[in-house]
């Protein structure tokens, strides 16, 4: 463990994070909503703690090792989650206690989108913008941003990137050099966000809402500047824009990169994960539409289509926007959507969940076992997109799946122990672990009414989900700390 280098990077990252509070501060000053003081104080505290970490060890050099990368990433997300709560704590409106503020901040950064605030419409604009910004920073990953802008990280950048990036194949890079890769990812991310904001604006949102919602859409977050979420606008065009950009953001960004570089849609067509992703969302959409139309005669077919399309995409990509209460849909539909969020987005996207490619691999693995029963001597390799996948990757996916389920069960039991009912606890853990946001039962609209202990547990769930479990769990093993 190279604690000095870790401390140096951590300090530097914190100092840089403090700069991201400047835009909300500007908004606070411009709109005079009385939160300028809170933001100033938060910047001062974060910047000075970052510098006081960095300055004493700024000269220490050395490469980050694989293990150091895990520690830096986990520490950074933890520290950021806590420091990011400062504006919520300090501002007069909303007046939040510690557990709530931390929950809100981590929910933002991990792009979960679960909120404890009731009366979002009444919040000052700076705080609203800050919540959206948190999601946007967490979406592509603030570490990836740091790798793009800090050339000093070098190979160490790869160790960090690996610990933060989602998906089973963590070594895939768009370009040979990690800084370039990180820059490309952010170019794509920023362009998508820009396009999304313009489209929202064209669809009739105010500039503030358009920018704010573009942040949480492209980050697959789910925070909104209104209590009623996207439903506030009650506009088909806004919903279509949201659906398109949620769908695009749930796609592996390296496909966007390839498509953009070669000016062709071929990469999408040829990618097995993308096809599965599209087919899965399409299938669930049809089931929802059918279910709604059949069971609720009061709902007209176009209305059923509209509602089911929006919610399938929103829940399926783990965004968590809403236009009405899908929680009260009939039959198995709410639960189906919740289960869909376990699949989540594609690897290398901003989406949460277990990632489509893992499910694809699990499915292929299952099919292989069936084939083996028929042809006991056959050697069957698992293929994705025509290319055989190394057994090592398949093993890792199984390990991930098993751990995910185990973590889920432990958190579920913990939550029930805090006094939550079964449906609420189940959906809350699912919504947080998958970085989805809204749950069912008591946590359908907000998480404000659950106990503090439950909130901290869910914070853990959100971090576990965002860092894909292993990055965090590895720190809890004794052999990690043994030198």
């Amino acid at each position: 463990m190279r604690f000095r280098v870790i401390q140096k990077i951590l300090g530097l990252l914190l100092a840089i994070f403090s700069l991201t509070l400047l835009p909300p501060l500007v908004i606070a000053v411009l709109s005079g909503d009385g939160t300028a003081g809170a933001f100033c104080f938060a910047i001062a505290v974060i910047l000075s703690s970052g510098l006081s970490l960095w300055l004493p060890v700024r000269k220490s050099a050395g490469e980050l090792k694989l293990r150091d990368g895990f520690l830096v990433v986990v520490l950074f997300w933890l520290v950021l989650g806590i420091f990011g709560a400062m504006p919520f704590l300090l501002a007069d409106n909303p007046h939040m206690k510690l557990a709530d503020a931390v929950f809100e901040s981590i929910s933002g950064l991990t792009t979960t989108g679960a909120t404890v605030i009731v009366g979002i419409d009444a919040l000052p604009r700076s705080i609203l913008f800050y919540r959206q910004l948190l999601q946007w920073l967490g979406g592509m990953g603030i570490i990836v941003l740091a790798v793009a802008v800090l050339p000093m990280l070098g190979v160490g950048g790869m160790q960090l990137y690996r610990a933060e990036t989602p998906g089973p194949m963590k070594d895939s890079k768009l370009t040979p050099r990690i800084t370039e890769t990180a820059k490309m990812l952010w170019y794509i991310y920023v362009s998508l966000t820009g396009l999304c904001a313009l489209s929202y604006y064209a669809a009739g949102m105010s500039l503030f809402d358009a920018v704010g919602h573009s942040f949480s859409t492209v980050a697959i977050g789910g925070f909104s500047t209104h209590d009623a979420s996207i439903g506030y606008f009650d506009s088909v065009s806004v919903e279509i824009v949201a659906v398109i950009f949620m769908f695009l953001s749930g796609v592996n960004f390296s496909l966007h990169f390839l498509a953009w570089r070669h000016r062709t849609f071929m990469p999408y067509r040829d990618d097995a994960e993308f096809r599965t992703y599209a087919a899965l969302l399409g299938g669930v959409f049809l089931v929802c539409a059918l279910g709604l139309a059949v069971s609720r005669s009061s709902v007209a077919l176009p209305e059923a289509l509209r509602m089911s399309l929006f919610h399938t995409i929103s829940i399926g990509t783990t965004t968590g926007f809403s236009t009405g209460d899908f929680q009260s849909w009939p039959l198995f539909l709410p639960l189906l959507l919740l289960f869909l969020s376990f699949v989540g987005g594609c690897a290398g996207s901003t989406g949460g969940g277990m990632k489509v490619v893992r499910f694809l691999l699990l499915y292929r693995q299952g099919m292989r076992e069936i084939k083996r029963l028929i042809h006991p001597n056959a050697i069957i390799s698992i293929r994705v997109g025509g290319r055989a996948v190394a057994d090592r990757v398949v093993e890792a996916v199984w390990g991930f799946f098993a751990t995910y389920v185990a973590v889920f069960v432990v958190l579920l039991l913990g939550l029930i122990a805090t006094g939550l009912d079964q449906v609420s606890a189940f959906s809350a853990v699912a919504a947080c672990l998958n970085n989805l946001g809204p749950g069912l039962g008591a946590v359908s609209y907000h998480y404000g009414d659950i106990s503090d202990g439950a909130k901290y547990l869910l914070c853990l769930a959100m971090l576990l989900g965002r860092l894909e479990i292993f990055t965090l769990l590895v720190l809890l093993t004794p052999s990690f700390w043994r030198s």
Partner: protein
Amino acid sequence: MKIIILGAGQVGSSVAANLCSEANDITVVDQSATHLQQLQDRLDLRTVLGHASHPEVLARAGAKDADMILAVTNSDETNMIACQVAFTMFRTPTKIARIRQNQYQVHPELFSPDALPVDVLISPEQEVTDYTKRLIEFPGALQVLDFAGGKVQLVAARAFYGGPLVGHRLRELPQQLPGIDTRVTAIFRRHEVILPSGDTVIEAGDDVLFIAAPKHIRAVMSEFRKLDGPNRKVIIAGGGNIGKRLAMALENTCHIKIIENNETRARAVAEDLQHAYVLLGDAADEDLLREENIEGTDVFCALTNADEANIISSMLAKRLGAKTVMALINRAAYVDLVQRDIIDIAISPQQATIGSLLAHIRRGDVVKVHSLRRGAAEAIEAIAHGDRNSSQVVGRTIDDIPLPPGTTIGAVVRGKDVIVAHHDTVIEPEDHVILVVTNKKHVNEVERLFQVNVTFI
């Protein structure tokens, strides 16, 4: 630069490590996922799994916009076909291939755009053989590097008590050696580098790097140490490619014995050699070495493909009385362990090979690059172009050239003449300038120095 390296073996990975640190975009292709994973963990590069000469694999590696392709897999044929594919399908500008077989090397007409489009052939075995041969030809030298086609050489030698100049200022060198032009370009004292001036005092134990014409090398070296007689009796351990080539190159001037433990190989080597003796046996066999008069041997050279065997047999030979022992060592960590104290000279194949590659990667008109001190420093031969207005070098005295820190100019080759650099030497257009850069991070600045400023043309 965007570079694709085919083959993640010894050469491939050490080249990748060398080039990665210089802000190049490197993609490595190999068929072994383990090799690639190791590289990926250590270096900032991209890896592609697959057969190096398959068009689809090359396309995935980004051959479309690559500036250079470096084919160093262990198969000559794969390397050649990969270059052909890169040329035909992707129009890659520079194609370098490792060709080991002499059979191919002796027909340069094979390698032209209308036959096999390989721009540069490299043969690590040949490089290592030449490198070792020069070391044997100059007893006492630690490193001998050719520039300008052998017109001038850069030599590293250790200073010992008994050398007339040891303990004296460098200023006295010309008086000691009237009529001989030489320049000390750098002194490595323990772990620091000293840029010599007239007042620098040579200490025993210093590694002195000097430049001179080949015929003067022995005379200059005699200033730093008591001179050994020429090397006559050489034992080579290992009859592989390098061992055999070295024996063939030296067998007319020295008494060569090769020890090879594989009977078939030993027979094959014996058939190809005229004068040398091939001994069947283990190079680390004490009795065999004694029997072959190890104590009267000038040079014991361990050139098998196993680092450990080379180190052990050299240590044994040294203990038994061989005057100088050399060992071929691939792993950099081993070199640190044994050089200086245990083994006289560690020959690093990477260091011998990388230079010929670096020359193609450097910007500006760089003809030759030799890597020094295991890559930490470089000796560069660059051609000065342009005139006083368009170049920062031409028309200026050496004192006036804005050299980056830690850099010295050793010599200038003008046509057929070798001019050893003095502070008032003026550089003319088309001069070959030989520089020593003691800190690799300044190599970029040196490259820029030799680029002609386009706006002035």
